[in-house]
């Protein structure tokens, strides 16, 4: 298992000299980006990392009556099922905190995340997501 690899620190930009305005500058991470070495969230790896799969709404508008994780959790290798109830403050947003991390009482669009299944492999997480009863 590879330990989290951090990106190589960006080269320090030269001191901004007088007359810097109008000069061409290249991005400090440009070299990492064009060579595929730039690390994004999805590229990070940690020891004993779990894989997660979101369970998403197939409906544009519906009430969530009940979520039963028992069957998903019974699969060996499935570690946890997270729903809105597990999130102490289930709101976020850029200018208004009107978005839910996970849908709570209802879903409002097709594809809205309802629950997240964590498992030892992506395959198991996907299986757990399929077995989740909502």
């Amino acid at each position, binding site marked *: 298992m*590879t330990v989290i690899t951090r990106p190589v620190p960006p080269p320090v930009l030269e001191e901004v000299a007088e007359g810097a305005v109008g000069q061409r500058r*290249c*991005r400090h*991470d*440009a*070299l*990492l*980006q*064009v*060579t*595929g*070495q*730039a*690390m*994004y969230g*999805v*590229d990070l*790896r940690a020891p004993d990392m779990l894989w997660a799969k979101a369970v998403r709404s197939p409906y544009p508008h519906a009430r969530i009556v009940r979520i039963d994780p028992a069957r998903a959790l019974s699969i060996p290798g499935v570690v946890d099922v997270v729903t809105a109830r597990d999130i102490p403050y289930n709101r976020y947003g850029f200018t208004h905190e009107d978005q839910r991390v996970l849908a709570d009482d209802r879903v409002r669009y097709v594809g809205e995340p309802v629950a997240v299944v964590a498992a030892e492999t992506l395959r198991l997480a996907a299986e757990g997501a399929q077995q989740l009863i909502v």
Partner: protein
Amino acid sequence: MPFDLRFWVNGKEVHIEVEPDETLLWVLRERLQMTGTKVGCEAGDCGACTVLLDGRPVTSCLLLAPKAHGRHVVTIEGLGSPKRLHPLQQAFIDYGALQCGFCGPGMLLSAAALLAQNPHPTEAEVREAIAGNLCRCTGYQKIVQAILAASQRASREEIP
């Protein structure tokens, strides 16, 4: 039943057992730990996972790994190195054809396939070649400029 996959990645022979339903993208990123190839939509729409298969750009998220058996794959890690950049990579830096950079590896490989087959493309040909690569920062103008610049630069270098 595991599949005995033997293929070439960036010129190096790779021999690895994979499940038959694993994608080439998965094998590159998770089994070979080469995360330069990006995972985007996993539906063949965004082009972030573009690699070259025998020189032709393919979306590796849609290609089952066993399909690469016996074939040559080029990923962004094989396009150039930080010390010796491919002309396209240098042009992307010079023209600022990068913002978040996530579409970069796929863009660069689509562009490399174009220039290999058509060293002096028109702007329309460049745009067509990268039509399958989405840039959500919408930096297309600079990307097109960079690819055209790289093609011109390459042609200048050909002249002794």
